[in-house]
């Protein structure tokens, strides 16, 4: 299976409930599941036959001293073990293969759903989604495997029943009724123990969380001189975890003892009964061995079935979470009007490329704003929520916006998402960079031209990242770019946006983590580069360096445009502006 093959998400609609998801799983892999179940059943059958073979050997060869019989028995034993091993190997590989493939498919489906351009409203947080795409995918997929294993266990129970009944009906019935009853009785304490074990795991997990939390903040602890207190705090939690563990171990011990004793007492009953029968001549010695051996063995498939039941329950819970994500409604419902790229870039008319007329969204009330090609417009917001709302609106994430927002003359809600994102690029304040290289982070389109990347880096005052590293543009970047400083991350994200060179670029607080000198260089670089490319740029910021480069600055206060003018004019005329911008 290749990556491309695995990616083909089926066109059928996502499963609407857990049952639908699970039946799709079975449908998708019915061939291998059936074959796997067959081989696992064969394997269980062979396991049943091992005690039978021991008994037969004792009866036919050891007790009689017949060498030919011994040869036959040993040969049979060898054959039995060969079939047993091969059946297990084939069955186990088939069923695990199914589970893994299904998990892979579910994983890709979740990723596809989460990354879908329309977004999703499952209400799950990132960590929860990650859990859905990893452990839940695995567990939901194990549903298929549980079926095959369960069928194998049932086969073992049936085969044991047949052998026992064929040896002696009353004895067989006794074993078949007695053993499940005993195991059932043992389930009651098991439930209580499971609860205690879960409590224990929770306490242990808390101790681990405290440890990683304290070590994660070790430098801070050091700076504030709190290391001794931290050690004391950890010791307390660790001690609590120990008490919980030992408590759980005690109840586990009681349970283990119960199971051991019950199993052996049951065995004593079976042995006593069949011994008595053997004495009567109703059983041979070999049959005695077989009965006792099977009585011992039977516990395995019965316990196995219990485990399969658990697997089903776990798979069901996971499938439910999975469906919650896969069937989540879209976050946005975009239109289908296409804005040709050429129109966005070189429409000769003087229509603004971006226009807000009486636009409202969340805290935004009645905003008028126009942006023309080649223009650099600054927006100063006094309330961070206004900035967020504006960013939301311009990224096409605002579903119930009021007023009119047009891009290239087309209302934003009628525009299809591809056109909108091709035309308007919003680089948000919370920078997201990805694991890979500097280059892979900067290249976001088909154009891989190196000079273009370098020009963008230069404008973002970030060339030092390339010059100062032996690998240059190919220097590795860790997940979330944790190996870069906050200021470096901000500048790489800015360079990425500049390299993408969209008709409309929206930047939100792009320089909060860089020093004044660098900020000045960035302001100049951005203004020059965007002007040279003829793109329209909207900068939402309160940095005077950036605002001073803008053709005009709009002051957004209490959800409305409160003032408009050049930075210099506003500094002179508007005391509020001066207060907000100058530091």
């Amino acid at each position, binding site marked *: 299976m290749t990556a491309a093959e695995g990616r083909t998400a089926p066109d059928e609609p996502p499963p609407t409930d857990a049952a639908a998801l699970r039946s799709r799983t079975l449908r998708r892999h019915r061939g291998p599941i059936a074959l796997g179940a067959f081989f696992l059943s064969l394997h269980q059958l062979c396991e049943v036959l091992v005690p039978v073979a021991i008994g037969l050997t004792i009866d036919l060869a050891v007790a009689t001293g017949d060498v030919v019989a011994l040869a036959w028995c040993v040969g049979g034993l060898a054959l039995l073990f060969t079939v047993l091993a091969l059946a297990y190997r084939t069955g186990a590989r088939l069923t695990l293969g199914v589970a893994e493939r299904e998990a892979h498919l579910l994983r890709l489906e979740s990723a596809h759903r989460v990354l879908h351009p329309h977004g999703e409203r499952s209400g799950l947080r990132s960590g929860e989604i*990650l859990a859905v795409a990893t452990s839940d995918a695995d567990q939901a997929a194990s549903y298929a495997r549980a079926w095959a294993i369960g069928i194998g266990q049932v086969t073992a129970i049936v085969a044991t029943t047949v052998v026992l009944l064929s040896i002696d009906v009353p004895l067989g019935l006794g074993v078949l009724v007695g053993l499940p009853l005993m195991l059932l009785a043992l389930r009651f304490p098991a439930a209580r123990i499971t609860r205690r074990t879960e409590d224990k795991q929770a306490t242990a997990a808390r101790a681990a969380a405290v440890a990683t939390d304290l070590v994660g903040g070790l*430098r801070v602890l050091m700076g504030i001189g709190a290391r001794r207190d931290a050690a004391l705090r950890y010791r307390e939690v660790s001690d609590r975890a120990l008490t919980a563990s030992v408590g759980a171990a005690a109840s586990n011990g009681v*349970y283990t003892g119960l199971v051991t004793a019950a199993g052996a007492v049951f065995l004593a009953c079976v042995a006593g009964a069949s011994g008595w029968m053997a004495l009567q001549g109703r059983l041979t010695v070999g049959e005695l061995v077989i009965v006792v051996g099977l009585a011992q063995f039977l516990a395995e498939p019965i316990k196995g079935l219990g485990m399969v039941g658990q697997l089903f329950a776990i798979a069901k819970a996971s499938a439910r979470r999975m469906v919650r994500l896969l069937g989540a409604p879209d976050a946005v419902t975009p239109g289908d009007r296409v804005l040709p790229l050429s129109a966005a870039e070189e429409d000769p008319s003087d229509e603004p490329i971006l226009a807000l007329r009486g636009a409202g969204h969340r805290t935004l009330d009645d905003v008028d704003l126009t942006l023309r090609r080649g223009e650099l417009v600054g927006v100063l917001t006094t309330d961070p929520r206004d900035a967020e709302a504006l960013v939301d609106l311009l990224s096409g994430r605002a579903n119930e916006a009021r007023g009119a927002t047009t891009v290239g003359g087309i209302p934003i809600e009628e525009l299809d998402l591809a056109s909108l994102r091709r035309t308007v690029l919003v680089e948000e304040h919370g920078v997201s960079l990805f694991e890979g290289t500097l280059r892979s982070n900067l290249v976001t389109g088909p154009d891989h031209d190196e000079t273009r990347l370098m020009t963008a880096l230069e404008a973002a005052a970030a060339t030092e990242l390339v010059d100062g590293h032996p690998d240059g543009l190919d220097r590795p970047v860790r997940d979330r770019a944790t190996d870069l400083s906050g200021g470096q991350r901000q500048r790489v994200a800015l360079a990425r946006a500049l390299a993408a060179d969209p008709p409309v670029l929206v930047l939100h607080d792009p320089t909060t983590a860089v020093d004044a000198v660098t900020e000045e260089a960035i302001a100049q670089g951005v203004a020059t580069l965007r002007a040279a490319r003829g793109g329209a740029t909207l900068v939402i910021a309160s940095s005077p360096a950036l605002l001073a480069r803008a053709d005009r600055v709009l002051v957004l206060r209490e959800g409305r445009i409160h003032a408009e003018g050049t930075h210099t004019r506003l500094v002179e005329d508007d005391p509020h502006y001066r207060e907000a911008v100058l530091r």
Partner: protein
Amino acid sequence: MSTDTTRPADSRAEGAPAGPDLLPTAGARRTWGVLGEGLRSIPGSTALALLTVLAGSAAGLVAPWALGTMVDDISSGAGPEAILRSALLIAGAALVGGILVGLGAWQVSRVGETVLARLRERVMERILHMPAARLERVRIGDLLSRVGDDVAVVTTAIARNGPEVVTALATVVLTTAGMTALDWRLGLAGLAALPFYTWAVRWYMPRSAPYYARERVAMGERSHALMGALRGRDTVRAYRLEDVHEECIAERSLTAMNLTLDVFRLFTRLGARMNGSELVGLGAVLVVGFWLVRDDLVTVGMVTAAALYFHRLFGPIGFLVMNFNDVQQAGASLARLAGVVDLPAAEDPGAQEGPAGSSLRVEEVAHAYAPGAPKALDGVSLEVAPGERVALVGASGAGKTTLAAVVAGLITPASGTVYLGGIPLDELGERRVREHVFLVSQETHVFSGTLLEDLRLARSDADRGEVEDALETVGALDLVRSLPEGLDTVVGEGGHELTAEQAQHLALARLALADPDLAVLDEATAEAGSSGARLLEEAASAATKGRTTLVVAHRLTQARTADRIVVMDQGRVVEEGPHDELVALDGRYARLWRSWRR
């Protein structure tokens, strides 16, 4: 996007030429030693655990032996009372065995968990009290994986497998002994399987270990790809990179899947080899038994017992082999924990006298992060009078943060001395330094727990009122009151999420609460937006009012309100004086100020 280009190159991710140190890992002997120390510290429990497990396994030997006797009794035509006796014997052994096995499992867990708890506490102790100089060189990820993953691996091994492994081992040893007790030749026949088991394990381990390692790496990369795309999904959508990321996730998921399947294929081959060993042992016992019965050396019953003994071993041996890998992993983690335990304890000269006053003097301090690396500090001298506030100003890389860390005692400079109240820091000893110097660093960390607990880390004996006063001082009381449960709100990982700005604000409240002689503030406002930055600046001035303070001024407004400004460039002090004087001087600071104010 190919996997090669996306793999993080850990070794060269940091700029430091020497590369970060890894914490030590103990050798096998030392690991056993640490384990032995732990066991010896609770000798009674250890002995009890061992005895009960052995006795429990011994009780398990009764049943097959009694069955063998039963077979012989039947063959020799004994009366029903002989059968009853055997059955009662089995039942009696069952009850005793049950009690012993249960007790044994409990005791083994108790011993294991206790040893582990003390070990993890010692590890945390060592890590938390690591000397600043060493902490500066180790990777935080390494520390985290020791206290997180390694402890978890060992815990799981002890809780889930510990009692079973010990019981299985005891069963194998005692059952073999039982077979030998029946007849030494039968015992020997059973042992014929041993080389095959050994061979199976030795075939499997070296082949599987690298696969498991690769599988873990692949799963980690898969999670990285997923998490990276998830966290940055707005960015992914904005740049229309959905396909690229899905492709990458698909590729990594596939790689991980194929590795899992490969490992499992290997595992099933181990299973086949185990089955082969079982066949050899069982066949040997039956064939040898056959000849011994023919020569009248043993009875049919003894052969029966021996065959049942051997069949009984399938489970525990299988368990041991299948879990060998977990045990090995636990061993590896244990070695990493033992390595930390053996770190030298921090030497603390512990000066008897506290500093005489809160003045700060930095004398000719020079420092480079690695031998031969460019100097981060190059002969810096500086004096701060008690109660004076001095701001450090300069471009990135000028050495401001390094100087702050040196003054806070987090970095021991290559040469030069820092005096606090006239006493050199290295003579004061780390503990005393911490009592007098408080650092608010660029790093903010909200410790998980209630807000009250978090703040009290700065001063553990502070009561609620004092904490509230400190919050009031820095103007954070309203912020705290607006939280769902005020001071008792659970914050940090898994709790109420605070913004970076709020976290920084609380860090300043910690400073006010700790009330140290010397406060060092480093870029405390970098991530906040402009309005937030101003709020934090006010909080910082309130928290440091009247206190000897060294502040790394990222925003020049912080510098303007300082009593004195020290301008740094390339590790040196280039200008020094109050704001107005430096502006009038029209030098480097004046240029910075103009570009800041435009």
